[in-house]
């Protein structure tokens, strides 16, 4: 039962010239959201831009008494809405509809959990890490970004007991290059029998590479896809992903209902579109 909240901006923390974390007073959504779910967001009250935009729930915000007071978004500036979200001051309003979509299926011991994030693909993993810790699952975050300055919230993940494996495009921190490299080492290091769950979120080529790599090691990956979405509720059929299940032919399924989390091996990556 998604709800629509005319949420007040609680905080806006700029992380870099392109990234920020926006706190929104939408406790009803925050309390109901499961890791991997998303919200459809629209700043202000006007009609410009027209459509809402999808965002992962980044953090659930609690007050000192442990009451849920809101949620935050990890936002990366790439266009009109993300630019507005970057600039908002506390007190501004953001319409926020959610929670939406199918969540990750969290691991349970003895499984260990590996999360693979590229850039803003970090967004769904904070709530997942909280859930994994609650379940006593040992977890690692493989996290790639352009440079050390764009590796965010490392301490927060450490505090949640998450091990970190970093990579940067410019080599300023962790592995020089793609995050697939440390992942591959780790997969090789882990015996094939060790129970493992893999999650990935980031640029499409990265999720595809992670899926293939995992597959080569006999592992599945849950990928969180970022299709363009018109409604988030199954109404428009804009967000489709070509999925091949049980050996059948590819079918377009709605990412907002059937996803955004998919079994990476079922995704027909070539048909995903430019987005």
């Amino acid at each position, binding site marked *: 039962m998604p709800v629509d909240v005319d949420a007040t901006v609680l905080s806006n923390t700029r992380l870099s010239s392109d990234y920020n974390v926006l706190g929104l007073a939408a406790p009803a959504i925050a309390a109901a959201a499961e890791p991997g779910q998303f919200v459809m967001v629209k700043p202000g009250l006007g009609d410009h831009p027209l*459509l809402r935009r999808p965002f992962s729930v980044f953090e659930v915000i609690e007050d000192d008494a442990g009451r849920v007071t809101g949620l935050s978004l990890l936002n990366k500036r790439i266009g009109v809405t993300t630019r507005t979200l970057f600039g908002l001051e506390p007190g501004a309003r953001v319409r926020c509809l959610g929670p939406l979509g199918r969540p990750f299926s969290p691991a349970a011991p003895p499984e260990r959990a590996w999360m693979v994030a590229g850039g803003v693909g970090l967004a769904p993993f904070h709530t997942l890490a909280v859930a994994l810790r609650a379940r006593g699952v040992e977890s690692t975050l493989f996290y790639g970004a352009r440079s050390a300055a764009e590796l965010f919230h490392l301490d927060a993940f450490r505090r949640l007991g998450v091990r970190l494996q970093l990579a940067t495009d410019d080599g300023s921190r962790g592995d020089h290059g793609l995050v697939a490299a440390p992942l591959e080492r780790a997969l090789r290091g882990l015996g094939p029998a060790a129970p493992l769950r893999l999650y990935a979120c980031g640029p499409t080529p990265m999720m595809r590479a992670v899926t293939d790599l995992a597959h080569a090691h006999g592992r599945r990956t849950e990928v969180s896809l970022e299709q363009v979405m018109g409604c988030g509720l199954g109404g428009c059929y804009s967000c489709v992903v070509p999925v091949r299940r049980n050996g059948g032919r590819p079918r377009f399924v709605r990412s907002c209902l059937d996803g955004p989390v998919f079994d990476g091996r079922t995704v027909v990556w070539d048909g995903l579109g430019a987005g």
Partner: protein
Amino acid sequence: MSVDLSVDIGGGLTLANPFIAASGCFGYGVEYADVVDLSTLGAVAVKGLFLDEREGHPPERIVETPSGMLNAIGLQGIGVRRFVAEKLPPLRERGAVVMVNICGSTIDEYAEVARILDDAEGVAAIELNISCPNIRKGGMMFGCSLAGTRDVVAAVRKVTRLPLVPKLTPNVTDVAAFAAAARDAGADAVSLVNTFLAMAIDVETRRPRLSNVMGGLSGPAIRPIAVRMVHECRRAVSIPLIGMGGIMNADDALEFLIAGATAVQVGTANFVDPFIWGKLTAGLTGYLERHGMAAVTEVVGSLDLSTRDAGPTPEAACS
């Protein structure tokens, strides 16, 4: 609420209020059952159905444009038989008034789809999507040819007693002529407008933004054109009109009602605000009360041209 919002959209069908979810913008209705009480809508026009399943176009399927959006979904759908088996029962259960939007590649397909729906339980009306491709006629659309419009409406009229509502495309020179052709062929009402054929280009890659190159423009951008077309049809035919195109709130809906629409559909706005339906009825009720009207029918076609030139002057288009 002391005002009467009910409207008669022809063919014996009365809706509790004039607000209909537009086809293709509300899935099969069931997707929204968690968000709105479907029985509170005037009607639900479900996504366009062919006889068989269709996959539609690859992504990107939509792109936002100034005060509008383009879509090229390509009529992905489960086909009419699965719709009847899987979607009609839950819709019936929830008290939805269901208009089924139907498509065909041939006249026979239209008729076959209509026949199946005529036999089904829980269909309130058939909306005939005649801006669909006519493969038999070499790609010409039924909806862009008066003869094609007449033929397909007449063929479907023969196989069903359900209220029949052809949906007109705006991509024509004289939309009122199409309304008249549809009426002559037995339509109970017409709905208008479908989307405007349009296109957007990514200048960095120099590729179309939609995988299908072109798509349909909807949203507030098109509203003034759609209102004009409703006005033109109102002057040409007397069957009920169902108006749409860029309605975002009760005032926008009122423009269509005043221009002569008996009911309206809301598409794109439902994406922006799935809770819009209660706001629309509240806004309309408030307006009618403020203006001392006891029923929505009083506002339908109430356009006051007394202080204006009597008719449409094509001159305006090149001023």
